[in-house]
């Protein structure tokens, strides 16, 4: 899903930003279990990081907004293990495995937590980048019903290429099971006026990290 409430850049009405003094890393044990389950399941490569994001974005808008951060992570993980046939609804309901499924060859071990570093999403490019730093581009006008990382506020807008970040796994492709399909990734900067018109604050700009298919020459 792309045009739903997770894409909230520029929306009004959510109120003031509330800071919590001396906030703990986790507010309760279940949050820490949900987070660590997601981290431990990730390296099994049963799904991609963008499939994980897409699972949360597929929540109905009112559920997404009513959920806390870790509630969304829990619902997202439940939906993936069900979708991939690892567990059944019945097993989740009773909290017990009813049928042994094929075990993964290697799972996340306690000692793996010593190196919780991020993966590398850069891939060998098949072509050279289409744009160079300083180029003016326009983002595409698109409204896919599947996952994308081009936010609505930055669609069909003129900006400038500020940096080339390498050739990366393309979220729009891998999230729908169409493979990594690596694409060049750029930092694209927009003047606030371009994005928000007369309601823009003076003296500000916004950048997004944009994959090459999101861009056309201006």
């Amino acid at each position, binding site marked *: 899903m792309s045009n739903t409430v*997770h894409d909230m*850049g520029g929306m009004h009405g959510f109120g003031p930003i509330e800071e919590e003094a001396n906030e703990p890393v986790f507010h309760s044990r279940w949050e820490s279990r949900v987070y660590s*389950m997601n981290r431990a399941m990730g390296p099994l490569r049963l799904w991609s990081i963008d499939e994980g994001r897409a699972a949360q974005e597929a929540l109905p808008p009112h559920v997404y907004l009513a959920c806390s951060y870790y509630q969304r992570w829990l619902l997202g993980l439940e939906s993936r293990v069900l979708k991939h046939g690892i567990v059944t609804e019945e097993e989740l309901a009773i909290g*017990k*495995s009813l049928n042994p499924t094929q075990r993964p060859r290697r799972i996340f071990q306690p000692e793996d937590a010593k190196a919780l570093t991020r993966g590398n*999403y850069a891939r060998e490019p098949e072509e050279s980048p289409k744009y160079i730093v300083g180029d003016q581009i326009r983002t595409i006008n698109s409204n896919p019903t599947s996952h994308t990382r081009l936010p609505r506020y930055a669609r069909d807008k003129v900006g400038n290429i500020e940096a080339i*970040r390498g050739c990366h796994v393309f979220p729009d492709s891998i999230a729908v099971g169409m493979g990594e399909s690596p694409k060049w*990734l750029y*930092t694209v900067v927009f003047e606030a006026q371009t994005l928000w018109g007369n309601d823009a604050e003076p003296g500000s700009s916004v950048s997004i990290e944009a994959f090459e298919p999101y861009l056309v020459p201006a």
Partner: protein
Amino acid sequence: MNEDSKREPHTHGVGDMSELTDVQARAKSLETVLSEKGYLDPKALDAIVEAYETRIGPHNGQRVVARAWTDQNFLASLLADASAAVNSLGNVSPVGSHLIAVQNTSECHNLVVCTLCSCYPWEVLGLPPSWYKSAPYRSRAVIEPRRVLSEFGISLPKTTNIRVWDSTAETRFLVIPMRPTGTEGWTEEELAKLVTRNSMIGAGLALEPEQKS
């Protein structure tokens, strides 16, 4: 809600809010089933939680910033390739790929957000605070950054431009705040104490010498 979903404890993607209740039991249930099936080792979950409650947190970012403030060569490598530069330090837990450092100056103040989810440089800052993941911050940072900063108690001169970084890919951003004046000759350890977590997101400034905790 239809009759079927009333009988079904796990009503995924339904239109009512029943799935938000009993979240502890659901988390426990999922962990038990996945462990019984051999997909998870609960001890590995303990180890991940412990890592984020001890080793992986903003103290790593503080050390990176303090070094950048005191060592021009390190600052240059940090701005060129932050992942490599951070990994060259001995006192910071290792980072993976795609870390990018952006430097605040009197001309430009950087602010980091993820409007689409909650992407954050976990390795150097730990897990994000609730406000960073909240709808108010995610929605407002890109459209009214100056007003957002004012709610964090920051009032920048009109001559300072604000640059908002929306983390829409796997690149992650660490803000290097400006070094406070009056800290000449301070050690890295002393300087690190001035570097707040919020200042490394851009939603704060480094503490002034007299504010040091």
